[in-house]
């Protein structure tokens, strides 16, 4: 595999009525990462379709080894800038490390930076992880387009999985709605499944070039 398997995903909820200042602070903080010569790829998405997280903002970085995740750029200064530019305007709601699962996916674990993505969260009953992955593995060969599965390693209740399907448009996501369903054999394993969509924020990326742009 050309990339490390780990992804870090975090999500923020902007304070009500504070959107303008949050957006401005986010742009300044992203600029801090650029000025600090951060080598990590940073994807920033807004949650679009969602029951609980509409307009929340997701920061994510993919393709890491354990060693690279263990060595972020200038963590003390990063935190200082965070406190200055982000924390006054938003609440941190989650921070997770996931492991990419190539045997059940189509793609390399580093999402194509398309303008939209379908983001599915699957929470399993305790102890159902192995059987769930086996079920996904059996249908891996049928995957037609980029479909990236990740298993939660640290950050919350387990077993929990995320599926990311980057697509160019909302229409592309809707046209593939029949492919949302999980294998029939996973029925007794799943406690909860949630499907959301993400909008990429082209002005907030670091070391990531949005697809279709130079």
């Amino acid at each position, binding site marked *: 595999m050309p990339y490390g398997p780990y992804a870090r995903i975090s999500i923020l909820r902007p304070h*009500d*009525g504070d*959107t*303008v200042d949050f957006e401005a602070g986010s742009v300044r903080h992203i600029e801090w990462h650029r000025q600090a010569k951060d080598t990590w790829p940073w994807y920033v998405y807004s949650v*679009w*379709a*969602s*029951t*609980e997280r*509409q*307009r929340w903002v997701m920061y994510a970085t993919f393709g890491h080894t354990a060693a690279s995740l263990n060595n972020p750029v200038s963590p003390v200064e990063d935190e200082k800038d965070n406190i200055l530019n982000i924390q006054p305007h938003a609440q941190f709601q989650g921070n997770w490390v996931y492991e990419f699962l190539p045997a059940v996916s189509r793609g390399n674990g580093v999402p194509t930076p398309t303008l939209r993505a*379908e983001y599915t969260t699957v929470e399993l009953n305790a102890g159902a992880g192995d059987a769930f992955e086996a079920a996904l593995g059996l249908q891996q060969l049928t995957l037609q387009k980029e479909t990236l599965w990740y298993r939660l390693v640290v950050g919350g209740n387990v077993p929990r999985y995320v599926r990311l399907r980057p697509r160019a*448009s*909302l*229409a*592309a*996501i*809707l*046209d593939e*709605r029949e492919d*949302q369903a999980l294998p029939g054999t996973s*029925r007794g394993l*799943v*406690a*909860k*499944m*949630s*499907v*959301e*969509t993400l909008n990429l924020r082209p002005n907030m990326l670091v070391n990531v070039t949005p697809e279709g742009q130079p």
Partner: protein
Amino acid sequence: MYATFGHTAASLSNPVSPAEDEQNNVLNVLPHAQFMNNGVYEFLPALSHGNGVPTPTPRAEYTTVVLIYGAGKPFETALALEQPKLHGETLWYRMVLGGDTPCYVRIRPRENLGAILDERADQALPDKVTGLVMKMTVETLNLRPNMLVNVNPER
């Protein structure tokens, strides 16, 4: 609640001037409100009485049904069997994007609250789906005639 109906995937994917829409949203709406939910639903004609674009009546009954995981197909099969019995406009939608699945919404546009209450006996789902439903919520909506775009309220 802001809603738009009767779209193809392509038309939903091409809203008018999204950047300017967002700018105006930030200016006029976000300072005064909290966005709680945004979903995309698919109309289910085989379960419904109507064409998927609600009649813009002053009132509507709005029912949300959350199922246990994996119960979508038997739920739709049971509702389809009951479809010939539907009398008034009854529109079923399946959530495609925007939260926990499976989730369904039923809209029954009606002229007034009296009409909604007179049909309370029709609120119930078929007995066959009892074991499939995790949660069912029934609410009513009031149309806002001064806030419609390309919609003429029914008189």
